[in-house]
């Protein structure tokens, strides 16, 4: 029951803005709703565990529950940040109450569609929900109807829709393979998995390529990532965080579901090798773009390509250790990157530019945000004691344990390049002298709460995984690996 409530809460939060005129009330109710959703997810995990199949439509095994928890956490942080953000925009006359209403409503349709992706059992309906996430978020990318925002939104809708059509071909081929080879007319994941051993191997191999390229486009895997830097940099700040931290992950989740079936049908290394290839490519390509980036939000967007690459490298290495590292990284990247997007968004607003060459002395101009930005940079770069270090180390140890020295070497090389670039870009931004005319910044309470929540996760998960989360992760890994 509690898991259904999450959908209901999101639906109510999407309707509420139409019942009031005040953006403050909308923001407060939004926070309350997402706090309730977060607590529900937490209670479900810690007390009840994964409920499994709920009815004909919904299923929440450990893997979906893990993604629900990740989404709920980032949603709560984005809801907290949104309140101050919308108030700021309204104060400057950039967002009327009507637009704030549209914003909060679409925000919740977007989060609802992401929850649905992780909850539906039917892989055809999952496809529909993934497409729904694109359509719900398109207006949030092009919210401020500037030339750049509209260009980004157009590319986002068109490129992701083409990707998703390719994924649909993959879904159909899987369905056909099941229909022809195993006599089942179903797209339910567990039934497909049961019959996976009897599927036509050649057809499944081709179908998985369609799935990987199709959903991979939406997940931001290189070389299909071209929409991502534009959309992430032009979207409203809380939406950039949602896009990067959870939207990409829901598409990755869809790939993982098909990957499990593919592994069962054609044996282990095939799908994993493809994932490893695209993961490594994403890592290498993003490293090159991160080096030369000047726009602070585009820089973070390329980091999303990097981290989705890391996740797929972890999946590609295979085995329980790699899969554990990859899933752990899904959560760690989500909390760290959300924090970075919020900090970067506040900084860009304060300085009136996205160009890092014109942003100087953030630590003095905005001490609270600056400190979190500094920690965020170290965390994102993979330094201990932050959580990303732990998940990257897990993936790397998985690779070494399997004797994948070339993969490990390349992985470390790209991470080192990216860390260097990150320090280079942010040293000036954080430490140099601030412009003289800049007044000190006082962040709203809700914004501070968002930073503290994310920073708390970033640090505590670097020191150790809480027992309930470790157990959930292990159960999710066993769904992935079948061990």
């Amino acid at each position, binding site marked *: 029951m509690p898991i259904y409530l999450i959908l209901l809460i999101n639906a109510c939060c999407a309707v509420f803005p139409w019942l009031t005129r005040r953006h403050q009330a909308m923001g407060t109710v939004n926070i309350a709703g997402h706090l309730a959703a977060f607590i529900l997810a937490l209670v479900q995990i810690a007390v009840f565990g994964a409920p499994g199949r709920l009815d004909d439509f919904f299923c929440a095994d450990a893997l979906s529950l893990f993604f629900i928890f990740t989404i709920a956490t980032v949603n709560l942080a984005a809801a907290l940040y949104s309140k101050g953000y919308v108030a700021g925009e309204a104060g400057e006359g950039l967002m009327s109450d009507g637009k704030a209403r549209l914003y909060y409503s679409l925000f919740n349709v977007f989060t609802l569609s992401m929850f649905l992706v992780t909850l539906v059992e*039917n892989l*055809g*309906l999952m*496809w*529909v929900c993934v*497409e*729904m996430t694109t*359509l719900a978020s*398109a*207006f949030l990318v*092009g919210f401020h*109807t*500037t*030339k*750049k925002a*509209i*260009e*980004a*939104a*157009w*590319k986002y*809708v*068109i490129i992701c*829709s*083409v990707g998703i*059509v390719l994924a*649909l*071909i993959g879904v*159909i081929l899987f*369905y*056909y393979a099941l*229909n*022809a080879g195993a006599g089942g*007319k*179903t*797209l339910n994941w567990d039934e497909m998995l049961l019959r996976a051993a009897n599927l*036509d191997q*050649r*057809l499944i191999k*081709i179908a998985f390529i369609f799935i990987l390229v199709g959903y991979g486009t939406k997940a931001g895997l290189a070389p299909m990532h071209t929409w991502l*830097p*534009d959309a992430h*940099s*032009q979207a409203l700040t809380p939406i950039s965080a949602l896009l990067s931290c959870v939207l990409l992950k829901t598409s990755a989740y869809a790939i993982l579901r098909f990957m499990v079936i593919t592994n069962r049908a054609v044996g282990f290394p095939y799908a994993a090798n493809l994932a490893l290839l695209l993961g490594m490519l994403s890592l290498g390509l993003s490293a090159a*773009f991160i080096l*030369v*980036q*000047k*726009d602070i939000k*585009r820089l973070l967007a390329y980091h999303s390509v990097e981290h989705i690459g890391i996740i797929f490298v972890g999946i590609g290495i295979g085995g329980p250790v790699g899969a554990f590292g990859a899933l752990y990284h899904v959560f760690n990247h989500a909390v760290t990157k959300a924090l970075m997007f919020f900090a970067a968004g506040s900084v860009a607003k304060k300085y009136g530019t996205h160009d890092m060459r014109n942003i100087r002395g953030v630590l003095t101009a905005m001490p609270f945000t600056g400190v979190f930005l500094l920690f965020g940079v170290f965390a994102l770069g993979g330094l201990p004691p932050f959580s990303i270090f732990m998940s990257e180390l897990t993936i790397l140890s998985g690779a070494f344990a399997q004797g994948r020295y070339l993969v490990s070497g390349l992985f470390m090389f790209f991470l080192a390049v990216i860390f260097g670039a990150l320090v280079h870009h942010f040293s000036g931004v954080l430490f140099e002298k601030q412009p003289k005319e800049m007044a000190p910044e006082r962040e709203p309470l809700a914004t501070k709460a968002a930073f503290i929540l994310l920073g708390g996760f970033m640090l505590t998960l670097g020191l150790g995984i809480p027992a309930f989360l470790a157990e959930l992760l292990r159960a999710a890994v066993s769904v992935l690996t079948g061990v």
Partner: protein
Amino acid sequence: MWAHILTVGLLFTVFLMAGSKRIGALIRVFRFQSLLLAFLTALFAWRSGERELWAITVMILVIKVWLIPVHLEKITAEMRSGENMGLVLNPPMSVIIVTVFGWLIFGFSDSVIGGMSGDARLNFSISFLAIFTGFFLMVFRLKALAQIIGLLVMENGVFMLVSSISGGMPFIVEIAVFFDLFVLVVVAGIFVYRIKGLFTHIDVSRLTRLKG
């Protein structure tokens, strides 16, 4: 025999699309293609006696033959861009390329799904050719509207694929896909208006502000 006539008609529409010079013509061919798809689905429904297939036929008629083309024609009229859709490759060249791909797809179809009957192989190949042609239109026609139509043609190809090789997906999924498609066209249509309003053109090759 009717199924064969409809399939050949679908193949014909694919070439007509590649050879269309104007957006208005492309929309008319899309409508005709969707009508043929509706007939084909009705034929399957009549043969199998499945009620759900009749429902899908009605949905194709309402959404793809009526609502979407009318919506697109309205946008085209308001954009006054019906004459030109930004051809990168001229129509004869486009038809030749689509023909070559059709031949290649037919050749490869056997290696994707082995042991298909002649009819199934033909349907499978035409479906993939429609998907390819949709993609081709998106890449080689520069106006935003042509890209929307390209996407719709790709989806029509996917629909042909699903009904030809697996006799349709579960009903609920089909309905949801239709709904999604309709919302997509509405959303993309709104963005076309916004592009026109801000840039005073709808040429996507000139949307180049975001780089690097």
